[in-house]
């Protein structure tokens, strides 16, 4: 709860910066504010406070909120270029911080209205930010598409909530859960409601076949915003997904788990296979982000004691890998003019740090030991195996192999191909620090994952 208040306050401060003209100071203020929030958020650990039946700040919420805030600190360092423009600087800060506040609601709600509010608070800033590159047609397209599709899925969500309310007479997750568990006389509109909510959530995490918006939006939006969507938004959406389906709808798992099985298998295969044929690296990462949603769905399907901790670890590992890869991508694309695989040629010679950071990030995304991504995948596979989904694990393994194919294309380009130019790309000191941090975090989490997975 502290996190929510602090983030909202930070957002308001960001808006005030325009009036009281301390825009120059805003960047350090926000970073420090986020770090403070991160620390104070941890104070809520094991307190488990509930707020008027609307939010329950349990350990699940603290853990996921910490991931959201921690990753957003890294994101702010990565996206420093996004906060250099004079014109809409404060808007950018405020929108991001409000989106983050929405994310915190999404990880801690216990009431469907709060879920809806959280999703909207998160999404509306993202619609604006996706279109924040006003001169660029693609950015406008991205914002518009995201808005239309997002509104569409919100419609599903609301419809689902309505039907469930109609069937149970409550918005409260625990009440609903108690009403339907073991009760054979649940009206069938409850199940329709569950399915509609499932579709809405699958939409938000961009799983196949509801993923069509993701590549266009990811590619069109400014790279910094894309990174935010791929990491923080996705983590928040998964946390919300888990809260709803592992608690409230677990009792009716029999009717939605098969649907999700198919969705996960499709997401893994379609996401990875489509990523192979992309020429634009950004679009490739967009499809790979779709594919990563598939792995996390595996944990949700497993629906056992590993589910929450494996999604938490996966989201963290994946977010760090994505921040690093989008960070390198935006630097390379900016200096070399485009983001095709060729633009990475010879990066190992001109900028060894960028190349190593990218390699570690891609190895992590591909799931190669000793990186965090490997353990994340391993842990998810264990979770799925424990509930007897061996076939799904084999599909996921096949998908990982395909994943290696496109991730390694970039590694090969960086280390093997000759660059057209021998000039090193200039990298700011902040970015250098960021990349060192991501490399260390990726390896450290891969070697010592225990303390994260014990949290939940």
């Amino acid at each position: 709860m502290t996190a929510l208040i602090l983030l909202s306050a930070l957002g308001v401060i960001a808006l005030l910066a325009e009036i009281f003209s301390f825009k120059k100071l805003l960047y350090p203020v926000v970073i420090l504010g986020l770090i403070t929030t991160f620390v104070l958020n941890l104070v809520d650990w094991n307190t488990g406070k509930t707020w008027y039946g609307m939010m329950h700040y349990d350990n699940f919420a603290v853990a996921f909120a910490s991931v959201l805030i921690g990753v957003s600190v890294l994101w702010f360092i990565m996206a420093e270029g996004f906060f250099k423009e004079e014109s809409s600087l404060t808007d950018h800060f405020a929108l991001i911080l409000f989106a983050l506040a929405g994310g915190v609601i999404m990880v801690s709600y216990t009431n469907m209205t709060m879920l809806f509010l959280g999703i909207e608070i998160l999404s509306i800033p993202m619609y604006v930010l996706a279109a924040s590159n006003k001169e660029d047609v693609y950015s406008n397209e991205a914002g518009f598409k995201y808005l239309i599709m997002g509104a569409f899925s919100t419609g599903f969500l609301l419809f689902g909530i309505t039907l469930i309310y109609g069937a149970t007479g409550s918005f409260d997750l625990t009440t609903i859960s108690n009403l339907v568990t073991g009760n054979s006389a649940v009206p069938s509109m409850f199940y329709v409601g569950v399915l509609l909510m499932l579709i809405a959530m699958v939409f938000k995490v961009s799983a196949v076949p509801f993923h069509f918006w993701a590549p266009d939006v990811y590619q069109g939006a400014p790279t910094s915003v894309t990174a935010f969507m791929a990491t923080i938004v996705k983590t928040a959406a998964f946390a919300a997904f888990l809260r709803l389906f592992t608690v409230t709808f677990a009792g009716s798992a029999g009717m939605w788990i098969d649907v999700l099985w198919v969705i996960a298998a499709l997401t893994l295969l379609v996401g990875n296979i489509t990523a192979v044929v992309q020429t634009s690296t950004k679009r490739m990462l967009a499809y790979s982000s779709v594919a990563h949603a598939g792995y996390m769905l595996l944990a949700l399907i497993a629906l056992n004691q590993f589910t929450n901790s494996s999604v938490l670890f996966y989201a963290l590992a994946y977010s760090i890998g994505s921040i690093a890869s989008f960070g390198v991508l935006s630097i390379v694309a900016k200096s070399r003019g485009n983001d095709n695989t060729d633009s990475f040629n010879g990066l190992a010679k001109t900028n060894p740090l960028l190349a190593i950071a990218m390699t570690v990030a891609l190895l992590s995304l591909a799931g190669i030991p000793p990186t965090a991504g490997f353990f994340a995948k391993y842990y998810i596979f264990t979770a799925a195996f424990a509930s007897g989904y061996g076939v799904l694990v084999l599909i996921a393994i096949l998908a990982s192999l395909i994943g290696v194919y496109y991730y390694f294309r970039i590694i090969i380009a960086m280390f093997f191909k000759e660059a057209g130019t021998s000039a090193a790309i200039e990298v700011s000191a902040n970015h250098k620090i960021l990349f060192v941090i991501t490399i260390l975090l990726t390896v450290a989490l891969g070697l010592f994952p225990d303390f994260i997975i014990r949290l939940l």
Partner: protein
Amino acid sequence: MITLLLIFFPLVAALLLLMVKGEQVKKIAFGAAVIEFIISIAAVAQYQHNADTQFVFNMPWITSLGINFHVGMDGISLLLVLLTTFLVPVIILTSFKKAYSNPTAFYSLILAMQFALIGVFVSLDGFLFYVFWELALIPIYFICLLWGGDDRARITFKFFIYTLAGSLLMLAGLIYLYQHTASHTFDIAELYAAGRTMDVTHQGYVFWLMFMAFAIKMPVFPFHTWQPDTYTTAPTQGTMLLSGIMLKMGTYGVIRWLLPIAPLGVEHWAYFAITLAVIGIVYTSCIAIAQKDFKRLIAYSSIAHVGLIAAGILAGNVQGVQGAMIQMISHGINVVGLFFIVDMLQTRLGTRNIDLMGGIRNLNPQFAVLFLIVLLGSVALPLTNGFIGEFLLINGVYQFNAWLAAFAGLTVILGAVYMLRSYQSIMLGETSVVTATFPPLEGYEKAVLFIICAAIIVFGIYPKPLLDIAEPSVVKLVDGYRTAIGK
């Protein structure tokens, strides 16, 4: 503790090496590799000749999932560690006159590779084993990608995908076993127990999930298609690492993990798998006969040799497994020698085509003798190291099935055909245009060849020290296997 030292010394050396620039880097790397060899000798000196796992170090790692950093060595592990620590300095020595671009990265990667290889051979925890297994892939991938020959990007990538596919199947197998352990742990003893509680069908699944990884690594027919291209394209030292040591990860995996975990599965599928291996032996020997490129010829001959090792292990008797142990060592030494000779020929003559060569014996009799010794070792002439291993292996396969042994035995005859024919074509006859001049051997080249030839002859005449190290563990392991299958 000595196990920890053996594992982490190369890693520390690799990391420290990154700070060194320039030519002295190879000397420092060589020094580090020699120190590692001395450490392993110290381990041999302390080793008690019994079947127990010694030098054990066990520390909790990821406790909530029952994963421990559990390492230790019995005779089987120790022998392979010894092979690794012996070959790595030799391999570094073979590169003393090479001018690789960015030598710092090159030697660092070799030492990093050694770290992972030692880790594979001493792991006593399924998860740890898997991590080291995968870790070994990354340095060799970059060694092949950065310093390899033509078309290396495509070829090394194929290699990477192939081996990774196998590894991931093994991972699935390990997780599957993990779910069946009583206390949810990856400890080797628990995994053994878990595997043995399954019926033959489920052990069959485990067999295939894990055997795929090992079969691709070795490689066994029909999973070998990555190998000739990769061996040919990789830089000489990369090829030596791949064929001399990395290949043994696969055979070691079968001995350490597959036989004890899924004895019924192995027994059920042994006939099929040995048949595959034997087909591979005959098929690749025939291809080797037709090769003109000497490096490629040896690559194919390596498939034939390792096919026999695999067949011997899967036969599941003491002769077969003991023969496999000896042959792993011998093959490692011989194949490094052969690839070094290929490299010497190529740097001197600018070609690897054996048809273009000839008459080198007259120009350099010393080289001719050393080459002949290495060659005789690899065709398993009695009194060379290759003989004992192949004899025991064929004996082991014979006890399993006489017909399979008869075909597997063809490897000796066909091996003699292609090796002696290539020797004839390279060394004997008249000199050709490319062999008009053949510069004398340099000091480091003599050193490498002397070391290898000495190993071939000494262990050919007196293999007892090596046999003794592995024997108690092999007997224990095979006894366990035969009890489990009820024979």
